[in-house]
């Protein structure tokens, strides 16, 4: 019995890892080895072999845009080719917004007299830095509670005591990571290939209820002590908009596996931080002399407004 369990565990971990790697390293064109940002306004393209210089110098062969706005093409000022003709540097007239992934379209690559076809390449920042910036972005800069105003019902409901707030935050983080990964998988491999995007809402809400139920059952069997502490918050998680907002954001932005994981983790931890901050203030407020009409929720809203003002200070911050 025990061996069975361990095998299942290892198998499922391997399966998840494999899927994530599959999403993480997708080969875009076999002739292009690497693309990267350089300085503030250049992009470096490394080819697998030497390219035709006359072709490479022609700016008309490249078109590039930021991923969210395919209509706005960026203007290329200068193209320079390295002596071994394997590296091409595109210099742009304006600085690039390096927080956004860029899509580079190279038409009819010519190398040693042969045409190698057209290539679409994604240009992104250093991958781990990018992942880290998604995590911090979801956690602090775009905190779901204070800058996106989601999950307020549960936020005000469970921020009266510090112990409740921490319990809720941890439970929420576990559930959201679990359900966001399932939603990502289902969206990328089932809904999108079969053009069922319009079923997003129905599928995601079902998935969230399902994962809450699953976490409930698993926790009850594996760790009854933990279940006793956190079980009561599980029901509340379903009523939280963040848990349904994260899958929708993942689907809208076409994130891959690692990015989805980071966004979900960031959202969960951000909610934990918000709950902790709020509960600390509300414990103090209990001792204060608040006007009768403001007791309870009204004063909590005003305090949340002050927090939101403070969190606005993070806006526009960029990590790398």
């Amino acid at each position, binding site marked *: 019995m025990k061996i069975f369990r361990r095998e299942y565990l290892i198998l499922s971990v391997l399966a998840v890892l494999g899927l994530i790697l599959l999403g993480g390293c997708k080969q875009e064109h076999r002739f292009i080895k690497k693309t990267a940002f350089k300085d503030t306004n250049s992009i470096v393209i490394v080819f697998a072999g030497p390219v035709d210089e006359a072709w490479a110098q022609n700016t008309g062969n490249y078109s590039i845009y930021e991923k969210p706005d395919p209509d706005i093409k960026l203007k290329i000022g200068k193209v320079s080719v390295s002596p071994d003709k394997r590296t091409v540097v595109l210099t742009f007239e304006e600085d690039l917004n390096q927080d956004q992934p860029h899509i580079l379209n190279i038409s009819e690559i010519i190398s040693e007299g042969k045409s190698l076809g057209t290539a679409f390449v994604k240009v992104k920042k250093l991958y781990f830095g990018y992942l880290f910036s998604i995590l911090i972005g979801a956690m602090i800069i775009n905190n779901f509670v204070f800058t996106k*105003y989601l999950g307020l019902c549960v936020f005000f409901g469970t921020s009266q005591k510090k112990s409740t707030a921490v319990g809720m935050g941890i439970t929420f983080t576990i559930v959201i990571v679990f359900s966001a990964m399932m939603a990502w998988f289902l969206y990328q491999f089932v809904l999108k290939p079969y053009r069922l995007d319009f079923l997003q809402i129905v599928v995601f809400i079902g998935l969230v209820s399902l994962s809450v139920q699953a976490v409930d059952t698993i926790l009850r069997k594996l760790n009854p002590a933990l279940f006793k502490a956190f079980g009561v918050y599980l029901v509340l998680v379903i009523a939280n908009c963040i848990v349904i907002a994260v899958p929708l954001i993942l689907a809208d932005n076409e994130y891959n596996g690692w990015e989805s994981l980071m966004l979900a983790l960031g959202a969960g931890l951000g909610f934990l931080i918000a709950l902790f901050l709020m509960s600390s203030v509300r414990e103090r407020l209990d001792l204060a002399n608040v006007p009768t009409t403001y007791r309870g929720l009204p004063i909590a*809203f005003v305090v949340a407004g002050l927090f939101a003002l403070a969190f606005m200070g993070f806006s526009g911050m960029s990590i790398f």
Partner: protein
Amino acid sequence: MPATTKTNSQLVVNGILNENPIFRLALSMCPAVGISTTVMNGLLLGIAVLFVQVFSSCTISVIRNFIHPKIRIPTYTLTIATWVTVIDLVLAAYMPAAYKEMGIFVKLIVAFAIITMRLEMFACKNSVPASFWDGVGMGLGFMFAMMTLGFVRELLGMGTLFGYDILGFKPLLFFVLPAAGFFCVGIMMAIYNYVELAYNRKKKG
């Protein structure tokens, strides 16, 4: 709660005043803070919620005798999700500009606690007409709250109403900032509380 004895007009007024979803029941506050920056936004989301609330209430009320008590919550959720998908697609097709401004909130109607709560408390125990009027009341209450907030924030923040210039200057730009949504909701709740306290005092004395 047994089947209701209130008349239709009482049901509607109940949703707007006594059990106002945002200011009294303190449910579905995310949109109240998030997108009540203009009256127009409030009106549009209000209409969307009204639509979803009325149709889900009627649907649940029609099939209330066939729902097994154990699976009632998933049934509610799926019903709401279906109607939200309908309104989401309709808005995206006919009002793309407004749809873009409301962003993710239209899809998030599915997670609004108020709709599920009304289905659980009212629609699954009452006849179709009563559920219909209760849905109208709750939807109007939500719309009323959203529009009040939008009115205050748009007038004080930008000096306009429905996009038309009213004041000619911008009194307090602060109110357009998202953070002001929290203050506005807090102050409105305090006003509702104050009215209730004053009313009770009057009744006693």
